[in-house]
């Protein structure tokens, strides 16, 4: 009995003595400095950032590449056998990292788990119309949807396939603390708030990675992240702060790699607050903002100006005929005067700080430009949780800043201008109709036509001021090759080589 307190004390003190250095056996190690570290390895729970870690150990049926195009992963091919059923042929000879072969049962299990509301799977809505998933044989799966569901394939690229046998053996909590998958890397250790350590899967179906160990470290502060890259402690860092781009490029040891994301940064009006029910007034505001100047000065030329629509260039449904309004403050002021605008109306711009690249700086610049034509604009910064609360109550005020991602398909971003999307109070019957129509056909040409018209309506009606397509900026050491910035911010590392 007497020894127990000693043992208990030893157990209590153990974490005090633990060190953060991961226990890699030997070999070459690639270190990545992550900006937003996921809070959990539990699939589908919490932030999107966890997907970047989970896709190191687990594959989806279809995978996106850095540009956002879809490629076969655990499914090698697929075909529609009727308008609401898609048949997937699975890759054969793939094993999980514990040696158990991957089969159709794992796919059925994973998708059923996602669709079970009690799982609380955050990305369930990406494949929200799925009705049932059945194994036809060991390597064939049919996914049936409730309605015609044109975004099924794209949605599936966010859903990782997990081992059924492992869940049944150890339970969901144990899976989250020690994932097993078919992916390019094998889980080794997870130290919340510090690092995620993996080893290369030498038997990866897509070709083994060219280095032995992968260490993903969290470095929340932007300048520290850049310092760790320049010092050679990490070879890749996420989210280079725009004001440090030059520092990285001039370091001589690393370069910034940039790609456009599909995030469209917009300022959305509340048209139920007068006088912003008047589309001419909303349009006048658009003329008052010098977007090229903000892009050059604040975003350092990274990213793109949105062309009168929420979609970023090249996304399915992007309308090439639309152009951003030019900067014309005199015209803006005249339009406001003609519309009888009361220049004493307070115009607070609600924004979060640090949610999007330079969000607060951009809002400050916009407010300044509006002030120049006499509009009483101010910036109202709110914390994330409070922002969500205001958003749910639809009380974000006259103007609020938000970024909408499309992930390559107009459906995902255009939904926020529908009534059901619940994120703007602007309503347009034709837009609503077209949105439903585009969702109800698998014909891509039909869908594109609908989206083009929807983007035109956005451009004419100005429910939002469409600002910028945001960049995704990575810092990459000159010591490695084969890495590319990714539009969806998922790390793709199988082609990376250490020099």
């Amino acid at each position: 009995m007497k020894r127990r307190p000693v043992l208990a004390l030893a157990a209590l003190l153990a974490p005090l003595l633990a060190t953060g250095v991961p226990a890699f056996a030997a070999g070459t190690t690639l270190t990545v400095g992550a900006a937003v570290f996921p809070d959990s390895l539990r699939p589908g729970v919490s932030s999107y950032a966890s997907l970047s870690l989970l896709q190191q150990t687990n594959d989806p049926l279809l995978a996106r590449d850095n540009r956002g195009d879809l490629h076969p992963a655990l499914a090698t091919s697929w075909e529609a056998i009727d308008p609401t059923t898609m048949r997937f042929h699975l890759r054969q000879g793939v094993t999980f990292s514990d040696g158990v072969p991957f089969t159709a049962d794992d796919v059925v299990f994973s998708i059923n788990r996602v669709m079970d509301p009690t799982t609380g799977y955050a990305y369930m809505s990406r494949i929200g119309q799925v009705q049932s998933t059945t194994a036809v044989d060991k390597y064939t799966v049919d996914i049936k949807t409730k309605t015609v569901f044109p975004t099924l394939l794209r949605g599936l690229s966010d859903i990782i396939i997990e081992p059924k046998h492992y869940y049944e053996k150890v339970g969901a909590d144990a899976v989250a603390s020690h994932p097993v998958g078919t992916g390019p890397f094998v889980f080794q250790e997870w130290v919340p708030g510090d690092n995620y350590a993996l080893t290369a899967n030498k038997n990866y179906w897509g070709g083994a990675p060219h280095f032995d160990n992968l260490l993903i470290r969290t470095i929340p502060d932007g300048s520290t992240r850049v310092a760790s890259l320049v010092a050679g402690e990490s070879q890749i860092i996420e989210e280079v702060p725009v004001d440090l781009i030059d520092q990285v490029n001039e370091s001589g040891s690393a370069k910034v790699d940039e790609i456009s994301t599909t995030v469209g940064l917009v300022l959305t009006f509340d048209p139920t607050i007068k006088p912003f029910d008047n589309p001419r007034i909303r349009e006048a505001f658009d003329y008052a903002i010098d977007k090229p100047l903000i892009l050059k000065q604040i975003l350092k030329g990274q990213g793109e100006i949105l062309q009168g629509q929420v979609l970023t260039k090249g996304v399915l449904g992007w309308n090439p005929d639309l152009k951003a309004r030019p900067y014309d403050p005199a015209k803006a002021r005249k339009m406001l005067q003609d519309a009888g605008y009361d220049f004493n109306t307070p115009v607070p711009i609600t924004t979060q700080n640090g949610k999007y690249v330079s969000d607060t700086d951009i809002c400050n610049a916009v407010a300044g430009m509006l002030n120049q034509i006499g509009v009483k604009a101010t910036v109202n910064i709110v914390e994330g949780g409070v922002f969500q609360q205001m958003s749910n109550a639809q009380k974000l005020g006259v103007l609020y800043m938000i970024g909408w991602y499309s992930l390559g398909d107009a459906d995902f971003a255009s939904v926020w201008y529908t009534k059901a999307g619940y994120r703007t109070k602007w309503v347009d019957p034709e837009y609503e109709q077209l949105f439903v129509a585009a969702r109800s056909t698998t014909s891509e040409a039909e869908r594109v036509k609908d989206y083009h018209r929807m983007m035109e309506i956005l451009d004419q009606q100005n429910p939002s001021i469409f600002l910028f397509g945001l960049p995704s900026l990575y810092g990459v050491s000159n010591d490695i090759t084969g890495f590319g910035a990714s539009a969806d911010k998922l790390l793709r590392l199988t082609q990376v080589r250490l020099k």
Partner: protein
Amino acid sequence: MAFYVLRRLAFLPLTLLLVAFATFVVLRLTGNPVDIFLDINRTPEQVAALSQRLHLDQPLPMQFLIFLRDLAHGYFGESLQFSGSAAGVVWQRVGATLQLAGAGLGLALVLGVAGGIACAVWRDRAADTVISAVAVAGQSMPSFWLGMLLIEFFALQLHWLPTSGYGDLKHLVLPAVTLAAILLPNFVLITRTAIIELAGEQFVVTGRSKGLSRGRVLITHILPNAVNPVLSFLGIQIGTLMAGSIITETIYAWPGVGRLLINSIFHRDVPVVEASVFFIATTIALANLLVDVLQMLIDPRIRRA
């Protein structure tokens, strides 16, 4: 004195209860974890399922009672964002924070007191002016700025130390110095003032007139009396130390409770926030108690009062 300690300890749960209540109310009123947690495309079924699991479907006072009931069993609840119990999640980070806070405080105390003694001994001479000036400058420099300068110089220019992260002693140096810099200047100034004031006291004059050397008077008569003001300042500053560790942990990617707390607030991970705040409040309360007890041990006047 044992009675005094027991009485103070008896008040600890009350303090913690008040802290828990304030934390709970503020977090719940400023955001709903379900909104932050589920994807923006969430379905009503998902919202209902998660709300039920977190007891968010109950009225707020009921939620607090459920929280208290669990707390009575030593259970803060399951973390919303990590797998496992909130207390476990916090406990994993405690080691890193105590290491950092301990090193920072130790450094500040040793260098601060030494600096203060030097200032007092060479009062109004070059050493005093330089040390006091550096102390004031250090005090007015924000931690994140000092942190960036230290990283730039010691990690990027000299390559002596790593820029960030958790690991061996080398990783601890820059964070500990940055944290120490918050408290150190005050320790210098408090020590300096205490010694200078004591130097004018009658017992010091007596000591000198008995023929004791300046050094002897300093060590045997002045310093023991100067310990108390430094200690009581230390007691007050434990809170500052914990607050400073939040910033320091962020700059240096140090996996401690401070960063966990900030992150959990953003995610409205109430169980983890409560557990972190409990840890920090308990640390501050116990550290204050320890300081008081030490003062009583050192100074019989306080003991008798």
